[in-house]
């Protein structure tokens, strides 16, 4: 490939010159060249020149962080294309979506791709967080990157939520109306916050413009900045945590292989496979679109976007201040503080940290799987705190007291773990997080699949089918 060593260099064509300009050193043929290529390339420089072979295992990272990045890129590209056919105004926004469907070549495909990538991104980002949690990969020195990652998850949710409104159909309008109604329960600043977000007393043209500008400028810019930092931080903190089996006492010494081709090939194949899958999915399954938003006609049930249905489910059981502010606030605080109170460096890289950790996680997930539906049913049909405590303020009778009653068993379980099993901080964190996360997943599933008209409990196959 290279011309070096040729005694009489052949006359160089225009294409040779172009190739030389693009890849000055030629395509690398040995490890030295490959390492040089990584080091000299802006994009590839996100990777170290060599990586431990062990961290390349699919079954450790599942490529979730990489997939998030791929989805971000897909969202960026499709989003920019969509910008060309969209006006953030009422009712033009909706007409533009109709036009995208009926008059724009590939308009529907691009919209579907954007829609499904965005929804997949939420799932993938949460799974990424779960993976990092289970392997303890947020321990020092990676605390900061955990914070950045958790912050990005919040931004991804915000991006999805603001994008949800843009089609301006019934689904969008009412999901955002339900979703933003929680803002007004923030203590002291609630009304002000709600007006700030909505640009008025209720969802309308100003909200659309607000959400649009957030969706296309502020949030993606911030995500891009944080994402770059996140990548850089991964390198600075020593790459991926070293995978380790449950029975391996010490982090193993792994052979280091060159990034090109071992890591880059994996990434490329992974990205291609997911893009192919998404493309086929987007071609087959259209993104939902209902009638134009009509503030006078609310659908029954009116549901928030699916990823907030766990919270909406909580709202059915608790005072809004508890369900909408205190509980999610505490959960977020716990997530952000995690690397500062769970610091045992010995178990980094081990799924579930230890055999005991795994048992406790299974136990907590199993318990949550039984107790959460049980509690939903009980609260739906039997418990009636506000009637049992007449005259008490709703915040107490329908908020803090049932919350205390609910948290008490969790606290007792935790005590029991400490007393009978001498569980340490790490194991208690695994147990409680496993319980709360499983419970939240179940609440979300209940909200999505089991809530029908009037937010009553229905079987999934009895739910009314809406939309066009």
């Amino acid at each position, binding site marked *: 490939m290279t011309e070096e060593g040729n005694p009489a260099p052949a006359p160089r064509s225009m294409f040779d010159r172009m190739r030389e300009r693009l890849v000055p050193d030629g395509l690398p043929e040995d490890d030295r060249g490959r390492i040089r290529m990584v080091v000299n390339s802006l994009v590839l420089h996100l990777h170290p020149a060599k990586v431990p072979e062990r961290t390349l295992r699919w079954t450790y990272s599942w490529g979730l962080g990489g997939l998030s990045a791929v989805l971000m890129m897909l969202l960026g590209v499709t989003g920019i294309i969509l910008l060309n056919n969209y006006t953030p105004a009422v*009712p033009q926004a909706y007409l533009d979506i109709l036009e995208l469907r009926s008059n724009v070549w590939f308009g529907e495909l691009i919209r579907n791709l954007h829609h499904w990538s965005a929804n997949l991104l939420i799932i993938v980002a949460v799974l990424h967080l779960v993976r990092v949690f289970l392997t303890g990969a947020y321990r020092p020195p990676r605390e900061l990157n955990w914070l950045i990652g958790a912050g990005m998850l919040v931004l991804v949710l915000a991006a999805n939520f603001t994008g949800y409104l843009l089609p301006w159909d019934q689904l969008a309008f009412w999901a955002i109306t339900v979703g933003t109604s929680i803002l007004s329960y923030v203590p002291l600043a609630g009304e002000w916050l709600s007006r700030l977000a909505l640009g008025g007393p209720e969802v309308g043209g100003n909200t659309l413009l607000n959400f649009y500008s957030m969706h296309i400028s502020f949030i993606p810019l911030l995500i891009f900045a944080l994402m770059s930092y996140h990548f850089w931080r991964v390198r600075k903190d020593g790459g991926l945590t070293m995978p380790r089996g449950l029975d391996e006492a010490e982090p193993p010494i792994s052979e280091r292989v060159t990034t090109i081709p071992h890591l880059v090939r994996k990434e490329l194949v992974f990205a*291609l496979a997911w893009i192919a899958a998404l493309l086929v999915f987007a071609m087959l399954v259209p993104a939902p679109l209902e009638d134009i938003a009509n503030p006078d006609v609310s659908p029954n049930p009116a549901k928030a976007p699916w990823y907030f249905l766990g919270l909406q489910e909580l709202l059915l059981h608790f005072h809004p201040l508890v369900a909408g502010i205190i509980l999610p606030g505490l959960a977020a605080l716990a997530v952000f503080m995690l690397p500062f109170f769970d610091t045992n460096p010995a178990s980094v890289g081990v799924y579930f940290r230890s055999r005991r950790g795994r048992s406790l996680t299974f*136990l907590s997930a*199993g318990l949550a799987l039984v107790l959460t539906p049980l509690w939903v049913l009980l609260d739906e049909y039997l418990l009636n705190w506000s009637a049992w405590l007449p005259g008490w303020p709703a915040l107490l009778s329908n908020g803090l007291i049932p919350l205390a009653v609910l948290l008490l068993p969790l606290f007792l379980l935790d005590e029991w773990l400490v007393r009978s099993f001498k569980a340490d901080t790490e194991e208690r964190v695994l147990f409680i997080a496993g319980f709360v996360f499983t419970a939240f997943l179940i609440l979300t599933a209940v909200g999505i699949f089991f809530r029908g008209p009037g937010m009553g409990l229905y079987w999934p196959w009895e739910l009314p089918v809406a939309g066009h």
Partner: protein
Amino acid sequence: MSETTHRTRTIEVLVGILATQVIVFALLFYILAEPERIEASQGQILDWHLDAAMTLYAGNCSVCHGLQGEGIGANPPLNSPGLQSMPYDELYKVIARGRFETAMPAWSKEDGGPLSDFEISKLAALIRAGDWQATGDRVVNLGLAPLIPFAADPDPLLLEQVAALPDGAVLQTAIQVYARQCVACHGADGLGTGIAPALNDLQVRAKPADELQRALLYGSPGTLMAGWENVLTPDETSALLVLIRRWDEIPGGAIPAPDVPVPVTTESLVLGEGLFAANCARCHGPEGQGTPRAPALNVKGFLTGVTDQALQQIVILGVPQTSMPAWGDRMSEAEIQAIVGFIRQWEPDAPEVAEPLRPGGGGGGGPPWLRDSQSGGQGRGQGGGRSAWAGQGQDQTTAGAGSARAGEAAGTALPADQHTGAGEGGQDGPPAWAGTGQEQAAYTTAQETSWRKDLDWRILLLATGGLSIAFTLIWLGFAALKGKRPEE
């Protein structure tokens, strides 16, 4: 490089090639299908808009432009070829801004109307490409069918009296024209209705003739009053003016209210049948044959003697001093019209004499002369069958309904078996008033549900799946915890 990494690499490369191929071919096929998809979605969106437009038409336009856009009186028809080929912008402008000096108001929100731009454009699409037959059905199903095309028959005796008045012939003409064109809105004897003012009125009589004439010929902008210039002859116009100014001389009752039959569609009949079974059959009998609690409806004498309006009034307001409740606040206009339409379609085949169902005393149903001799064994036998059916659900219920129908089809010769048997069963199922086979079958399908009836394989699958996963996890957790205690 080890054996496994070599294999991994091969798999990765293969997956990469496969993914690339999928991307290329999927895009290729998509590109080829894109023109078709665009065309299909255009059609789909048009259908969707036309569907919404029909509802808008029913709520906003049909009162003046007629059930199927055929126009009413002086209001122009919309189902004309001329309008179909009218440019979209022109249609939009007429609907949005209204027509000067006509009854057509501005509908756009910008001009104080109720409709958004999007809705107006849907209506324009309806005029250009709509199905007026389907539109008419939609208007009926929504209970918004206009009253206007209906005319009244003037009372012939009173008409003779009018002829005896000075200028009687003119007044007679006017009454006939009024009964044909005006009565639907301005009401019997010109006393007004909910949509138009009374003309038989002191203040109207005091108005100068030219003002009245202007309103009559050119309409009254901002109201539903259309201009009648092109519909009425000059003679008819002047006769109507005379009538309006001399109405105090006309005997009351000369112009009765028009008979407005409730229009029906396939959907409204289905709706009416369901509503009747759920709400009316309990007292009036499932076939309207009447019971001791309420009179028969399905009988010639009743159906020919009552107008649809009277039926609607009865349903809406109820009958005081009887057990007929007022349904007006429980059902919508459309639902009440659907029930009336359903009752009305019995008329051609209605029997001359009703045969009301009679409940028996003491748990047995049927006519009293058959109650004691047969009811015992038969009744208990069917009663036992009924409790089994309550447990088994749908199949048995429909079978019960079927047998009830069969019993009725057999006529009145053998009513006792049906009635007594099911009546006995009524003790453990529906309340005692459910005295007859027919009633029970109709009623229990709607009312009686057992929790076991809800149980199907999906619920079992969900419950067993969830529980087994949960208990496996718990068991795994416990087993591992107990098996390996910490060393220290």
